[in-house]
């Protein structure tokens, strides 16, 4: 269906952390594509490698201990893995921008909001101080901050969480990036603010036509924002597909369980929630075979022996689960 060239394509990315206690495979063979004007959502449990795979794109992984050991990150066909630090600096904040999860800590507390917005403008677009200021105020207005001239001079501590997150977004949008990586941009916010922010991001996407890589663990947010979804578990994508596939035709037992175990506002009261027993395995000590095997209702012998391969249910919908491997052999 998609013959367009993706803006970003990640192929078999492996980012490992070499810690004192052993190797943590932060993301272990992840592949996905992001197209212009589209949103790809990464969902999954805490520690499943969502952030690591995204941060690898801009080489923002703390190193040491982190290291990209394998794979390609193709941005418009160029492999970013081979870029030098100098080349990366040109990409960061300019072509690809990031919004981080914590609005409280991702702004520098001792610099004014205005200064922080002006920085990428002056750096990448080489604007003069006055021009940059004009543009920064414009950006503040764009992200819906009332009385932007006043806020321009304020420090982060003088703003509420929602406002700070808007500033972060303004920074990210400053240079009209082609790709926006949003790492749980609303997790720390209240629902009413979250709704505002999500709306804002969508508006921006419409206006600027950028691609978004949205990381979240809230399926509600996924449903509202994403075109495609990648579900991660223990450093691997266990299921991938268009948003409808994921919500209405999910295949992987983990995803199915996850959906069932969430209480829903719009449903009648059920006595007991569905439970995925057990817990996420220790990243230092991952089991062989399917990482979900220990918690899976349908676990089979083979699951504990071999890593499942991707099984396709359509052009863009696949799951890594042995439950389906037979029926799809032919493909």
């Amino acid at each position: 269906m998609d013959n367009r060239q993706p803006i970003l394509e990640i192929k078999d990315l492996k980012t490992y952390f070499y810690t004192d206690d052993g190797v943590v495979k932060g993301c272990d063979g992840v592949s996905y594509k992001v197209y212009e004007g589209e949103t790809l959502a990464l969902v999954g449990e805490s520690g499943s490698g969502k952030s690591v795979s995204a941060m690898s794109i801009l080489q923002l992984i703390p190193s040491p201990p982190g290291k990209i050991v394998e794979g390609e990150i193709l941005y418009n066909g160029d492999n970013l893995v081979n870029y030098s630090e100098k080349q990366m600096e040109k990409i960061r904040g300019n072509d690809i921008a990031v919004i981080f999860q914590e609005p409280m800590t991702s702004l520098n507390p001792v610099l004014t909001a205005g200064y922080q917005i002006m920085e990428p403008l002056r750096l990448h677009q080489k604007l003069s101080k006055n021009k940059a200021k004009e543009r920064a105020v414009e950006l503040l207005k764009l992200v819906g901050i009332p009385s932007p001239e006043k806020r321009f001079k304020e420090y982060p501590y003088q703003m509420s969480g929602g406002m700070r997150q808007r500033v972060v977004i303004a920074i990210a949008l400053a240079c009209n990036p082609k790709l926006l990586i949003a790492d749980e941009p609303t997790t720390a916010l209240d629902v009413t603010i979250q709704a505002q922010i999500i709306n804002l991001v969508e508006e921006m996407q419409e206006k600027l036509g950028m691609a978004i890589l949205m990381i979240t663990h809230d399926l509600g947010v996924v449903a509202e924002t994403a075109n495609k979804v990648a579900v991660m578990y223990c450093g691997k994508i266990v299921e991938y597909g268009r948003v409808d596939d994921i919500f209405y035709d999910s295949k992987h037992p983990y995803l199915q369980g996850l959906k069932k175990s969430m209480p829903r506002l719009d449903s009648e009261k059920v006595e007991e929630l569905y439970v995925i027993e057990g817990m996420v395995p220790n990243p230092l000590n991952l089991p062989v075979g399917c990482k979900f095997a220990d918690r899976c209702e349908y676990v089979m012998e083979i699951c504990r022996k071999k890593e499942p391969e991707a099984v396709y249910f359509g052009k863009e919908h696949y799951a890594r689960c042995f439950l389906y491997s037979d029926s799809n052999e032919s493909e």
Partner: protein
Amino acid sequence: MVNYIMRRLLMLVVILFSASLIIFLIMKAAPGDTATVLLGENATKQAIAEVNAKYGLDKPIHIQYIKMITNFFTGELKSIYYKDNVIKIVIQRLPATLELGFFAIILAVLVSVPVGIISAVKRNSIFDYLAMSTALLGISIPVFFTGIILMYIFSVKLGILPASGYGGHIWTGGFKNFILPGVSLSFVLMSSTTRLTRSAMLDVINQDYMRTAKAKGLTKMKIIIVHGLKNAMIPIVTNIGNQVATIFSGAVLTETVFSWPGVGRLAIDAVFRRDEPLVFGAVIMLAGVYVIVNLFVDILYAFIDPQISYE
């Protein structure tokens, strides 16, 4: 802000007088008296009584202390030994101490902040390792020993620097005299500041906003200087504020070794001579410097850390 400073200054007065009271009481508890020391071994009883009467040393302790305070405020407190106004005597020596102290502090900051930053940025490199070991060594040597060794090397062997003494204000040609005492005094502060800068910088480097800065495409240098340093300055400044006491304590030793005409040496001599008014004055001044520098540090915060405002 002005309000805040006023209030702090009020506190300062309380602190100073409590500090001087502590010293005064301990001194009063000590055996021995001022007159004997003043008149020397050959003094007669009558002479001692006369001296005691003259300086009011025969009055009850609380009266003596109150008199001392009132005299201090009216500017009439006189040193028994120097027979001169205590405030004047101390103020005369204050520049030497302050210049030396601040010279040492500035020297320490100039050396240790860059070294600390480089160490943090190049963590676990040979530079880091060497810098940190040297810094640790620096706080492991007694100040007075460093002093005499420096003297032997730079004055006797190399003959390039004056060994001791104060050659006038640092800006009026006395600079050469500042080098040896300044260096030996700054050692302690240098060591602790280097180490602190490193750890503060490491802390800052791991903060989210540093990642944000990197994600903007800023160069490493710019990230460290613009985004890192100002944040790291907060603990560094605190440390310097806390170390002021150490610096001035250390100055007592340094001043003795380098024949430096400072308040520390004056105070020690005054204690040895039981010159109570002078001890009183010196303690008030030294404690005052300590408190004021700390106040200054607090005010400095307001400039570094926008979250702090003293309204």
